[in-house]
């Protein structure tokens, strides 16, 4: 017993000295971890905000489509079916309205990608380090290790943030698309509504007797049908352009980020 007590005494002073150093390193580590987590939280918030914006934009488009279909388009169909057989085929853009499909960006994917990959110090490493440096030394070693991990965490967070920025650009494209479609539909609907009013008087006057329609009247009917067809085609454009160039390039950019994050995760 005395042997152990005696032999431990010398190590005690060393342990205490190293413990102080460990606490300093722990403080540094905590700060770094805090910064890393702040960065990651900022990345999450960035994407969340833009995702909300994208959702709002697409909701606006969807609502506008529904509104036009239930008002102007319904009015047109009711009016023109008096004089023409109409075959209304709902396209993808109309079908998706009933499914309530909105922006498919999954934020969880970002979180999965961003999970840090650095393994913590194993028990064996701690034990061996203890042998080399005593309890205080093992703490220092582990602290140094944790500091190194925190540094790596920080670097990884920068990549996560960069990926978030790419997500934001991709989402911004969706927002832009949605806003423009909504504006286009609004403007087209204005013209369409006026055209329906004009052709309503003409059809009331001439009815099913097509040979009764003069040139000017035919031109107005033609214009109204063209507006109806144009609006229908715009409504048929899906909320998201899955095969478009922007989508493809967005996926490529996001995949690049994913690949780097996977590489870091697998280290």
């Amino acid at each position, binding site marked *: 017993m005395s042997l152990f007590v005696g032999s431990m005494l010398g190590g005690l002073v060393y342990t205490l000295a190293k413990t102080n150093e460990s606490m300093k390193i722990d403080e540094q580590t905590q700060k770094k971890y805090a910064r890393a987590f702040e960065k990651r939280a900022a990345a999450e918030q960035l994407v969340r905000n833009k995702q909300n914006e994208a959702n709002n934009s697409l909701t606006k488009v969807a609502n506008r489509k529904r509104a036009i279909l239930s008002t102007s388009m319904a009015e047109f169909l009711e009016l023109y079916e008096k004089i023409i057989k109409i075959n209304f085929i709902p396209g993808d853009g109309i079908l998706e309205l009933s499914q309530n499909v909105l922006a498919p960006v999954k934020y969880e994917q970002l979180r999965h990608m961003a999970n840090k990959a650095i393994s913590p110090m194993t028990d064996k490493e701690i034990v061996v380090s203890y042998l080399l440096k005593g309890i205080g030394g093992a703490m220092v070693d582990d602290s140094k290790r944790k500091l190194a991990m925190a540094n790596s965490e920080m670097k990884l967070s920068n990549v996560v943030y960069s990926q978030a*920025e790419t997500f934001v650009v991709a989402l911004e494209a969706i927002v832009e698309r949605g806003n423009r479609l909504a504006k286009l539909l609004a403007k087209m609907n204005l013209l369409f509504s006026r055209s329906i009013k004009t052709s309503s008087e003409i059809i009331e006057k001439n009815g099913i007797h097509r040979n009764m329609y003069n040139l000017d009247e035919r031109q107005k009917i033609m*214009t109204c049908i063209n507006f109806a067809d144009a609006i229908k085609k715009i409504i048929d454009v899906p909320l998201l352009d899955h095969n478009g160039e922007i989508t493809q390039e967005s996926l490529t950019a996001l995949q690049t980020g994913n690949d780097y994050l996977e590489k870091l995760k697998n280290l």
Partner: protein
Amino acid sequence: MNNDITRQDIDDYNKRNANKDSYKNRVFNGKRTTMDEYTGEKLFYSAKGKNASVVQPRHFTTKKTATIDHVVPVDQLKKQYSGNISKEQLKRIANSDFNLAVTAEALNKSKSNMSNHEYLYRQLKNGNPESLTTTYNMIQKEISAKIGISGDIAVTRVSEKVGKMSKVNKKDLKTFTDTVGGKTGSTLNRGTDAGLMTLTISSINNLTLVAAGKKDLDNALKDIGHDAGGSFVSAAGLDLVKGAVSDIAKICKNPKFAKILQKDVPIVQISTIIMVSNSAIRFINDDISGEECLTEILMNGVGAFAYSLGMAVGGPAGAVIGSIVVAQISKSILEYRQCQKLNEEKEQQISCIVSEALVEMEKQRKYLQQIITQKYDRWDNAFDSGFEQIFASAIENDVDGISNGLNTILCIFNERAKFETIQEFNTFFDNADSVLTL
């Protein structure tokens, strides 16, 4: 002590302490202080202060004042060798540099006529063990001394035989043995570390394999000899250590380690434990000194356990247990070192990948932004232009113009107006069976 030879016949105080070229004066080399060869602590040349008068009582304690110790005590030398070599040779050997060490008066007095390992063992048993630094230094000095002594004697014997055969002048022979013997001792001293370390590492590695049943003893001993052959250890020293190693090897075959208490501490076995730990750690972390590592290992549990276990069991059996435990530690430490290296490499890899990632992702993001801007600029231009055309054509009652305006807008979606000319519409409208497909 043999009645024919007295202590005074063997001890040479002047050569140790007083002469101008005594061991003490050569070690101090004109300075007031030097390092204790056992403890590593600072020692003062004299007990008196710098400007002390002759009658001044001592200024420095016995713990701080230097004296010269016979590593292998005179009594033991006499007991072991007086029958084999002459008094003069014994005197020379006892007072050769390899058998002397500058240490504190207090330690020297406490050690008395014990060998270094006996002193260390006594301290341990009394619950007052010396530090690892002291333990290591004292053990190493003892081994070096014993190797030096064996080597010196071997040289002396060979020289005598050669001298007899070739009728060499006695005086020349004496000069030769003094020179070669002395040189052998000091050279061996320097080479002891490397030599013994190689030998002990090889011993532990090989005997662990024997204990594990992966190697037979004969091959293990051959490999040990082969490994140690390249190291600078005299034949006498090699035999000394090999003998101890063989003892250990015999025990390896017996899985049940009997608790054998021996009076004599097997110093070679202890040094084996210490030096294996030392060498294992020393090449792992270049910024950790051997002594520091040994201090840390022995003072932090496992090493002390192995050490005390070895001491408690005693003898070669204890050394085997200690050796295997230390071998395991060494293995873990080696793996840890690998891990550390890998971790450093990993850190560098992370930095590299991160830098590359940030640059590439920024580049791709900018390109994406560019495409988006270009696309929506095209949309904006088409929509503005199309509506402008529609309004202008509506004012002029130009139905074809309205169609063209719609085409400008719809071409963004790869579509065209239903009817582009009034003629087209008339063809449709005049056909009673036509169906408007939307």
